[in-house]
């Protein structure tokens, strides 16, 4: 059902993901404008994107005796890991790298962001950005276990760690229909690893922007891009994991993949604006006391279904 795409697709994925991220940023800008009662049009969306050239030409600021090596490595890791993560996500019937353990690959790339963000927080040699890095780790420890169980649910239901196998197993019935809790946990975790919306705690206003606080120029652009790239990557992964991939009547599979990804992305951007920021210490207790037991129960459902098949 899902085949490996030709070698040049290696360059398509890194181009498509930023396009999705730009779409999400534009949608977010439009929502902000509408909530503020300002006219929401092309100009509003465009003005937000003007940030890109502005950051590129901006004079970089530096903090004294910053750890440049770790800061650079961290800042680059966040967006690069997002792009690497989608290499296993099928687009229609094609995927760049149809790894036999694609689900684990996505998870491993997502965890790389922990290291990236902590390094960039540490490397700036500034208190607030360091606190932001620590906050991301605390948040990571909170969201990671429920997320892993959500991934395990989908993989168990498909009896495959291959993303293509997960898509094929949803022939007829999407996993989102009979594993709604895993789907919800996955979407929540997408916000969490993109540190956006209610999970923007590592870049919170109360610590002057945290990990983003002392970044400037291209560094800041890469970190900001990393957040939205991760949101887009998460939305793209939700489609093969829970929404049947490119399956659908009528148009070509790739069109369905794109359509579903855009729908998930818009939903994520809309829902995010509805919730206040969650502190990691509160979320970790909620995650471990409520989400983890429920996620284990949710993982039990596909296990029993598969055993009885």
């Amino acid at each position: 059902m899902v085949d490996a795409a030709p070698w040049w697709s290696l360059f398509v994925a890194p181009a498509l993901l930023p396009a999705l991220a730009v779409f999400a940023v534009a949608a977010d800008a439009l929502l902000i404008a509408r909530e503020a009662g300002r006219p929401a049009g092309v100009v509003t969306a465009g003005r937000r994107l003007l940030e890109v050239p502005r950051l590129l030409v901006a004079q970089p600021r530096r903090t004294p005796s910053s750890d440049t090596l770790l800061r650079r490595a961290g800042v680059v890791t966040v967006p690069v890991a997002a792009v690497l993560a989608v290499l296993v996500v099928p687009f229609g019937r094609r995927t760049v790298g149809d790894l036999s353990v694609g689900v684990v690959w996505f998870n491993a790339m997502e965890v790389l962001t922990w290291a990236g963000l902590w390094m960039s927080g540490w490397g700036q040699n500034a208190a607030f950005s360091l606190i932001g890095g620590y906050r991301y780790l605390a948040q990571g420890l909170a969201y990671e276990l429920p997320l892993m169980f959500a991934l395990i649910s989908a993989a168990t239901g498909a009896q495959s760690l291959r993303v293509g196998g997960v898509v094929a197993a949803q022939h007829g019935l999407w996993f989102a229909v009979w594993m709604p809790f895993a789907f919800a946990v996955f979407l929540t975790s997408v916000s969490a690893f993109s540190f956006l919306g209610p999970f923007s705690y590592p870049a919170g206003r109360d610590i002057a922007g945290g990990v983003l606080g002392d970044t400037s120029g291209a560094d800041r652009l890469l970190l900001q891009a990393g957040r939205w790239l991760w949101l887009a990557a998460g939305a793209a992964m939700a489609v093969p994991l829970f929404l049947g991939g490119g399956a659908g009547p009528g148009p070509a599979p790739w069109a369905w993949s794109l359509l579903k990804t855009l729908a998930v992305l818009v939903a994520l951007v809309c829902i995010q604006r509805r919730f206040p920021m969650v502190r990691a210490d509160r979320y970790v207790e909620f995650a471990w006391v409520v989400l983890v037991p429920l996620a284990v129960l949710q993982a039990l459902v596909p296990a029993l279904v598969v055993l009885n098949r």
Partner: protein
Amino acid sequence: MSAVLFGVLAVLALVAALLVFSVGSMARATFALLASLVCAGGEVVVLGLPYLGLVTVLMMVMEMVVMAVFMVAYMMDPAGLTQMSMVHNKRGSLVISAGVFVALAAGILLVRWPERTGTRPADTTFQLGESLMGGQMLTMITLGFVLLATMVGATVLATRRGRYDRFGDDLDQRPARDPVGGGVGR
């Protein structure tokens, strides 16, 4: 191709491992070690065990990042503003590590490697799961319980909070008197 990749990853892993003992800050040492372990995970993937390799990367990133937090918290000079070193007992450790390296390398060259019997399995992940969860199921279950009990026990011994100071002498104090606010039900 895979032989070249294996060599490159091996060299990178070794260089990163050497960096652990030559860089001047705890954070750099931690992430040099992480780089080395990621390369080791890559080696496992190249050797045909993609699941084990990727799980190594996944686990080591989480573990090293959490370790960085604790190491930095306990170091006198975590930022390496004055030079710190991961090397203690320089001469002794050099002798021991060189000895171990030579012994292992000699082992690789001297031992007669067994010939492959049978054909290569189609899916090593499946085979791995079967050998872990099939024949060794009892071992895995026992291990799991022992590990969990160790973690819970260590946490209980390490924390000063207990149920009596949270719920009172008769365990009827509601809500619990928790020194940390927030969370479920509060």
